[in-house]
């Protein structure tokens, strides 16, 4: 177990370092942030002074070494655009993204599981096929388009829900959240639904496969023989057994939902980390881009690590293999 964990950690550190190098030099090669940030009225001397203030007058390997030096002390630099620490900037955008991803996750379970179980139960009937066909749309429609469509239908035509922004927020445990106010929640529904659509289709398919398999098991036949209602069999017995793989997959998908909600956040002007990333890329705000992607890598590494650990705990076969290797 310990060997397994240590090996995993070493791999993670390697990924992190590789990521840092690629992103730093990649962004460096795109262009010079001062060219975009400085006022067009600025004199050449002011441009030079600004370059010097940010250290761009140094050769790139010196810039990289000083970046690494600071990073080792936990300082990923200050945003060129906002003049604030890149990490604290990202963290200030984080609660908005986390709560959106969480609501998206809840929606995808609430939509996906019942549909999937029903589709599995009626697998050969038209209801089952209709659900499966519908889920193809969930997979294939681009997020951007779905978001705009939701805005057109629910905000512009029906005027049920607001089209944009975050709405009222309240402070909960030091984090400003929308999810606990009526206004904030109404602002979250459309973006969360957009974000949930793809995952819901995934869950539908998993739940259907699981249900089909479970229905053939002896315990279902026994329950039927006992005279339990079909509803009770599905909701209590089948559901319990199919949830394990769904939770595993959703755990992994949560990571991508947090890190790559960029498109949805842009369409709904949701002030999350994804929007910060896009804005930073457009202005070549290198410290923020690098810090964001490193943070993303860390999120994935941690989630993967946790999932691996849970696997070894749940499934003795994985543990045995790990020890044998």
């Amino acid at each position: 177990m310990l060997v397994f964990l240590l090996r995993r950690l070493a791999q993670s550190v390697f990924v992190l370092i590789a990521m840092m190098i690629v992103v730093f030099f990649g962004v460096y090669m795109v262009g010079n942030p001062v060219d975009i940030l400085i006022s067009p009225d600025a004199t050449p001397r002011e441009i030079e002074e600004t370059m010097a203030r940010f250290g761009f007058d140094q050769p790139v390997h010196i810039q990289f070494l000083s970046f690494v030096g600071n990073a080792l002390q936990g300082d990923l630099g200050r945003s060129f655009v906002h003049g604030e620490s890149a990490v604290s900037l990202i963290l200030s955008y984080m609660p908005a993204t986390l709560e959106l991803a969480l609501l998206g996750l809840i929606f995808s379970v609430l939509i996906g599981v019942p549909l999937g179980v029903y589709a599995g139960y009626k697998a050969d009937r038209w209801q089952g096929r209709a659900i499966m066909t519908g889920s193809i749309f969930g997979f294939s429609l681009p997020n951007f388009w779905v978001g705009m469509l939701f805005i057109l239908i629910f905000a512009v035509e029906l005027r049920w829900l607001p089209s944009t922004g975050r709405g009222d927020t309240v402070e909960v445990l030091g984090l400003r959240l929308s999810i606990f106010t009526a206004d904030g929640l109404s602002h979250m529904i459309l973006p969360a639904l957009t974000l949930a659509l793809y995952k819901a289709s995934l869950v539908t398919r998993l739940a259907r496969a699981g249900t089909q398999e479970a229905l053939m098991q002896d315990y279902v036949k026994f329950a039927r023989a006992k005279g339990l209602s079909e509803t009770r069999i599905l909701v209590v017995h089948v559901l319990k057994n199919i949830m394990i793989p769904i939770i595993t997959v959703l755990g992994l998908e949560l990571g991508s939902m947090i890190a790559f909600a960029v498109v949805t956040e842009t369409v709904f002007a949701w002030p999350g980390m994804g929007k910060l990333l896009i804005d930073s890329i457009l202005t070549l705000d290198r410290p923020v881009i690098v810090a964001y992607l490193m943070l993303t890598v860390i999120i994935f590494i941690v989630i993967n690590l946790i999932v691996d650990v849970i696997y070894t705990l749940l499934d003795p076969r994985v543990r045995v293999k790990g020890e044998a290797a």
Partner: protein
Amino acid sequence: MSSPVFRGLAVAALAAAIPALPLAAQELRIGFASEPSSADPHFHNVGPNNQMRRNLFESLVGTDEAQQLLPLLATSWEPISDTAWQFNLRQDVTFSDGSPFDAHDVVYTVCRIPGVPDSPSLFTTYTGGIVDMEVPDPHTLIVHSAEPYPLMPTEFSTFGIISARANGVDGAAIEFSPDGCGDLNYPGTQAFNDGSAAIGTGPFLMESFRRGEGITLVRNPDYWGEPAAWERVTMLPLTSAGPRVAALIAGDVDLIENPPLQDLERLRSDDSLRVVQGISNRVIYIHLDHEQVPSPMITGTDGVNPLQDIRVREALSIAVNRDAIVERIMGGVAVSAGELLPPGMFGAHEEGDLPPQAFDAERAQALLAEAGYPNGFGITLGTPNDRYINDAQVSQAVAQMWSRIGVTTEIDASTASTFFSRRNAQEFSAYLAGWGAGTGEMSSPLRALLATRNPDTGMGGTNAGRYANPEMDAILMEALRTVDDAAREQLLRDASRMAMEDFAIIPLHYEVSPWAMVATVDYTPRADQYTLPYDVRPAQ
């Protein structure tokens, strides 16, 4: 239903259901296309920040819709010698913390400007020429420059004034020096963002500044001028055009800036909405490489740079059908340009005095043949594709028009962050870009785009084509030293005409900026493209 959360929800839902008309009528929600990077008025000299700062921190001199100067914190100003201006300041103005405004606050502000930490673009561009400031009495300010400085009042319209007293500094004790005013206490940029230092004389107070989410302003009850029409203003950053329009139509905002051209028709046809538009101070132009031999992106000329020949430059200019571009690509929402600043602004020619070059493909071909290129040559036109309205499409059209006279043109389009770095490195033989005259007068584009480049004087800062014309430089320099407005305007016109007749640059069109809003409010278009809540009025 008894948990506190649910009770809260119920109360909130009930509150939302009660109509609160008078309050709602005084609330204004604006969807902005860009977001300021900070609430600090001196942190970043860039459009969105300067637009935001006008709500909170007023400058000595204001500008109206056409960028003509207006009294603001200064009631009048006049030159008292060749190198000194006197500003007479408004009496009885207080900052939002109650401290009175006087000339020492201006000195304190100018002292802070060069030292703002981590600033990506300082305001020293506008204060660098000041060598001394005198305060003979608290409401009189005399500003000295080393050289005649006719633009000083204009440049005093670019930065907002902060209070010395509110930051614990005794204004009267400040010793001004252009190299720094000694060890004074200045608020940090963060203090403006969290609101603690957001103390100005403006018509609004800042209630909150939340990145990505928006900024809320409330009316300044003690404002010295006409109080704002709005009790509360919410400024939302809606950076994608589609969602911005959707937010307006859905009723989530009352006014948006920069609705995309393709949506204007639909917005205009809606009776509950209003669309206004006005010519901006931004010209879209094509700059040509006057310097490099051979020029990097020209083929088929045996290493010669054909752009150094005035006949070739004229051919390229008259080969462009500006009216067709305005009509078909800009949807009529632009105006063909004959120089670098639209008629009506300071130093521009009157309507018709220097008209756009007329389209004449035949003459263009003849000129090319005369210059020794009967079969044309090949060129690549560099262009950004996300910076100006329909920039890449305009470049495509120009490329087709040039190709038609035999100058085979390819397009090299890239995102702004890449484009400007490449342009500054002189990678293009011809490039499309835009210039907004921040000061609203002809000296701005001439100085930046066409004056001979000189890093020491700051001339030709954006002259990536490296145009150099000592004769025009001389007239421009004289204009920049002439304090008399009428004489200066004539000099600027002469300089502009000289450059245009030399086909130094190819002006294409002036951008027209649209705003869309609900029919119950109204806004007068501004040449500087700013959206200022104070100037948004309830419709008659």
